[in-house]
């Protein structure tokens, strides 16, 4: 919170606001939680005891919500989930009213997912506690990018200099946006692959190399990160069919062979097996890091919850 602290941000709304050393600080902070989470018996640290964490999810989610809930509970917080997708928001209550309501309940940290870009920031501007963005529209999904970076760092030793290929629906993906920012900030060489209809305008401004040809992009790749193709994109509006997408952009064992022999396979989940990725690749015991991403997700979110609530908890140097 204080300007001299290693993470001088009230909220975590996106990777765009973070300096490289701040990203590295969060990754370093997550290491201790990896160890705790792997402990055989009690996985508990009660530093957030007495704090209330509200997970307000305006868009359906299972795994991200679960990950944040487990992360909060392992730190001892009182975790409450608000499934806003079925709540008064549907009855016309404005987002601002919802924010004011959450604030009046004296939450100590709020985790928000919303289907509209910028919505999380809108709420963050009107509450008194730290806000964590768990995904806003196509804009950002910072904890996903952080957990992906943590996974790569854990598996590869470092991120700098790694060739990372991100393939799929880049246009509609907040995961791709946060990952482009995070990985380039940490010194990786990032290539993004999509059909022309799913590539955002001026994507090269992220200092990434755009490719339409997946095979060409895979040359010398250290990491292949596949994105989920949403069902509603497959109906002919953006791509002709799921099978045509698979033929050009599906990650098969043959395609993976074009990357480096030890290339890591990642996917934020949930996967469309047979569309963007084949089971033989997704379940590969050495190459796939997909379940490890889930594991890193909990540790990463614990680190973020810990760091953002230090001011509230009066941790020396953070008040």
């Amino acid at each position, binding site marked *: 919170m204080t300007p001299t602290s290693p993470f001088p941000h009230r909220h975590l709304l996106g990777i765009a606001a973070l300096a490289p050393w701040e990203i590295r600080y969060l990754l370093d902070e997550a290491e201790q939680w990896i160890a705790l989470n792997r402990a055989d018996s009690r996985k508990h640290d009660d530093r957030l005891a007495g704090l209330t964490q509200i997970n307000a999810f305006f868009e359906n989610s299972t795994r991200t919500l679960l990950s944040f809930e487990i992360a909060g509970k392992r730190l001892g917080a009182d975790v409450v989930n608000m499934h806003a997708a079925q709540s008064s928001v549907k009855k016309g209550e404005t*987002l601002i009213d919802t924010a004011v309501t959450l604030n009046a309940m004296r939450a100590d940290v709020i985790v928000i997912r*919303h289907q*509209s*870009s*910028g919505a999380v920031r809108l709420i963050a501007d009107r509450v008194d506690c730290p806000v964590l963005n768990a995904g*806003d529209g*196509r804009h950002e999904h910072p904890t996903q990018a952080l957990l992906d970076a943590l996974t790569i760092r854990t598996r590869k030793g470092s991120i700098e200099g790694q060739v990372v290929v991100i393939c799929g629906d880049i246009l509609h993906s*907040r995961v791709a946006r946060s990952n482009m920012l995070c990985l380039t900030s940490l010194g990786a060489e990032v290539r993004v692959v999509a059909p022309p209809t799913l590539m955002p305008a001026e994507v090269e*401004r*992220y200092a990434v190399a755009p490719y339409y040809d997946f095979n060409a992009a895979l040359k010398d790749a250290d990491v292949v990160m596949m994105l989920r193709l949403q069902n509603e994109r497959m109906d002919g509006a953006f791509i002709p069919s799921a099978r045509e997408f698979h033929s050009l952009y599906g990650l098969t064992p043959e395609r993976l062979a074009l990357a480096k022999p030890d290339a890591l396979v990642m996917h934020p989940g949930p996967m469309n097996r047979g569309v963007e990725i084949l089971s033989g690749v997704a379940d590969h015991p050495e190459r796939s890091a997909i379940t490890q991403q889930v594991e890193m997700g909990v540790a990463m979110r614990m680190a973020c919850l810990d760091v953002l609530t230090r001011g509230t908890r009066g941790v020396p140097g953070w008040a």
Partner: protein
Amino acid sequence: MGVIAIENARLCDPATDALVDGVLLVEDGRIAAINPAAIPAEAERIDAGGLVVAPGIIDLGVFKTDKPAFHFGGITRAALMPDKSPVLDDPGLVQHAARAGKPDFWVHPLAAATRGLAGTELAELAMMKAAGARGVATGRRWIGNSGVMMRVMAYAAALDLTVITHAEDEGLVAQAVATDGETATRLGLPSAPSCAEEIAIARDIALARVTGARLHVRLVTTAAGFALIRAAKAEGLQVSCGVSPAYLFLNDGAVSDFRTFARLSPPLRSEEDRQACIAAVANGTIDVITSSHDPRGPEDKRLPFADAAPGMAGAETLLALSLNLVRDGHLTMPGLMRLLSANPARLLGLDAGCLKAGAPADLIFIDPDVPWRVDSARMAAAAGNTPFDGLPVQGRARRVMKGGVFY
């Protein structure tokens, strides 16, 4: 009504290119003489104090009759867009809207081109003209069906009504709320290429050619759009276009941080296109500068960017921002008043917007240099949704006369 002599004025006649010091005589609500040989003895003498005296601004395309904002902005007449609830697609509604501002402000309703602005069936254009409509407008949207648009234009041409269109190809725009580019990509906003405008204008010009209609593209915002308008004018077609100050002084970077006050329709464009707008003012491609006044409260604007309504409250800042064009040497003062007053009057078929004997005495006294700051929290408008909040500006209307009466 008696005789009023406005003395010590710098008279701004849009038909000329220079200000002339002198006296303007008003009688029975109309301009009686410019620099008369003698001032009648019974005249009430008004000292203009060296201010610029110009015809009142005629704002071609506003979305709300917002008199306090218009009065602050020196706007004496406005063409009201048909996007009302209910839509101005019925003679009774048009007649009602036309009466709404009088006597101190005149509203000239624009008839909805199609019923409910749905873009499918022709609205009763002739009956709405008889009820006071001064033009035909497609509303906030383009008419996607070319067959419908051709019939609208042919019909309006026979009625001698200008067709005022919104130029964005609907297939390209779909759900877009921004222009393709780095800002939209980084913010994750649905966006469309700027050629959506070019495509729409090209079609409407082609239809103007076959129907002989008078076409006015309310807001043109791209270099490609201006090129088409210029070519159509060179060809001799009755094609004109407008712009609003937002496109002259802001680019798409203004939507950074999801600023919904900068969510406009068409969306803000690239810096290259912004500069093309300035050039198009200077070289005469642009005929009209409009405020596109659309006050929107928090219920429409304090929302996630893509869910927020487009539009800005522009009436109060129209004159001050436009005066930048004079200070920067792109226009003369009378040249600016052509864009703000004379040309809109011509397109709407109004006997106004000029400084000649016999014209209605709709006059504004402009102090072109007075500094003030735009403050969205303290605006006269129905809402303070301006992307220019906090900007220091210069120039405003000190007095407004409508029909020979000061308000």
